[in-house]
């Protein structure tokens, strides 16, 4: 089904706490049909940028526009029909069932018990959580909770999806499943932004990769442009080699032992990076 096209744009956005910039003049756009992945070392400001884009934090400088209108001008109910946010972790103190949690994703829309139930169960099937439906959410493993949360976010059926480390607690099969669902949503017209730590997941599934370091956007481009040895080695302060994925048309990122001064020569020399920061 076709979606309204959506565009989430950060214009020179900064966020400072006590004078220290956590996000520093970052400009970034996510549009319908794209999967944009944010990478960067711990403390680079990825989650802060995601919170700014979600409207959880007000920028100290710059502006965030959703479909040409400032983000803070939207009411919560309006925004909930336009963008969904998948948090890193959900801690529930009460014994809601997994199905009830997924059904909460339907609340922004006009209520229709039967249709809502069908949508919820269908997304649970797609996220491989349908067998967990009657179980209580707190009794699930962290990985199961993460997939149930993804089902909730997808059930919200919004044209913008913000995913904060959606694969962090998942096994390989479910990591691939989750990123494939993100790609599928983009193919159907969603604008998807995901924070990822796994650079190979980013390489395999991103249309564009944005690299944050020290709160600044240091590179943005397609995986071949961004995932280069010099850039990654500098940004992550660790020697990193980049080669070609044996089965996919994308880079394969391999960390080298600490102290390796020069990365070994790889068959596919990386193309020049498109640094913008």
């Amino acid at each position: 089904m076709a979606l309204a096209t959506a565009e989430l744009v950060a214009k020179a956005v900064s966020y400072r706490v006590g004078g220290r910039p956590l996000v520093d003049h970052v400009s970034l756009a996510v549009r319908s049909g794209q999967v944009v992945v944010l990478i960067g070392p711990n403390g680079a400001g990825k989650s802060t940028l995601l919170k700014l884009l979600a409207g959880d934090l007000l920028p100290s400088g710059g502006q965030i526009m959703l479909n040409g209108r400032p983000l803070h001008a939207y009411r919560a109910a309006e925004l909930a029909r336009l963008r969904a946010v998948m948090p890193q972790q959900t801690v529930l103190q009460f014994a809601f069932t997994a199905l009830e949690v997924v059904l909460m994703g339907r609340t922004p829309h006009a209520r229709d018990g039967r249709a809502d139930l069908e949508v919820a169960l269908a997304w649970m099937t797609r996220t491989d959580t349908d067998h967990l439906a009657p179980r209580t959410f707190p009794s699930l493993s962290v990985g199961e909770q993460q997939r149930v949360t993804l089902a909730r976010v997808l059930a919200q059926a919004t044209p913008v999806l913000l995913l904060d480390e959606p694969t962090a607690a998942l096994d390989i099969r479910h990591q691939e499943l989750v990123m494939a669902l993100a790609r599928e949503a983009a193919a159907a017209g969603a604008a998807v932004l995901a924070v990822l730590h796994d650079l190979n997941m980013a390489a395999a599934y991103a249309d564009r990769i944005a690299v944050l370091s020290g709160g600044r956007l240091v590179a943005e481009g397609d995986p071949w442009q961004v995932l280069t040895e010099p850039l990654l080695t500098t940004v992550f302060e660790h020697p990193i080699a980049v080669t070609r994925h044996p089965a996919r048309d994308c880079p394969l990122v391999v960390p080298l032992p600490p102290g390796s001064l020069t990365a070994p020569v790889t068959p596919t020399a990386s193309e020049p990076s498109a640094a913008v920061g």
Partner: protein
Amino acid sequence: MAYSPAASTRGRTAAGVGGRRRRALLFPALLAVLIGAVLLNAGLGAVPIGPAQVVAVILRHLGITLDVPVIAQEEAVLWSIRLPRVALVLLVGAGLGTAGAVLQGVFRNPLADPSLVGVSSGAALGAIVAIMAGVAPFGSATLPVAAFAGGMFATLAVYGFARHEGRTEVVTLILAGIAMNAITGAMMGLLTFIADDRQLRSIVFWSLGSAGGATWRTVLAVLPFISAGLVLLPRWGWALNLLVLGEREARHLGVETERTRFLLIGLSALMTGAAVSVAGIVGFVGLVVPHIVRMLAGPDHRTLLPASALGGAVLLLSADLVARTVAIPRELPLGVVTALAGGPFFLWLLHRTRREHGGWA
């Protein structure tokens, strides 16, 4: 709907909605128990009165005459002593049960209770200050008004303290509530220390809780405040469900979290302040009742709030029946009965939850 999940649902129609039948039975069962409790509370006492007479008297005051003989003395006891007390206990119990369920949801903390945000202790302090001051600018309503003002003041102080740059941190709020309880507790202790014998008796009687002073006037005085909460709060059941998911998550799903939380806490404080102002401190109802309802019907606030109102009314009516009849002609303080029954029950609940789900956090 936007992108569709496309896959078949494998014929699963209502997995996990198994609590539905239980929920459907819950309300008729609670209502039946409540009616039974009302008849028992109205009927038992120094002058026993049959359920038919109770129903006849209630209906006659509503303009329906039944062909049931009622002795004038029975009628007098019922209408001027027992029924106002039943109505007051019912209202206070329903209010405390609902307020407890709401606050537990708002604070995402199953151990939250009206006393947590300082409502109860603030109200207690307000009443004790009024007793000590010995002035009565509002006549017989002075004590309730002072209690109510104290409760609202404490709540607003705690809430205002926890707000920072337009956001409210729940942990700060809970810690501020603890600090407020410590301050009001110390001030109450000080006032108790300097009180004379007559004041002391009044303070003790009031701070242990009692429905003994119930008249139709006190019932009418708290009716608007408590029924406002009983009617309005269940409308936010869906928002409470989302708030339990997390403050950010709730906002992402369309809840104006700040406004909603302020409203929910405000209405709960209003109900609790009203309840404490006429019945003194009655603990454990707001804590225990929502737990029992969750065990029976799950955590969905759309069910939890009305069910906690009915459950709170039933529980407090039972407690008042015990308080009134166990040591005739003397009366036990209501708060002592609820704490004596509620405390051990809550320990058992903790033990059970720990064993079955590994605890709450």
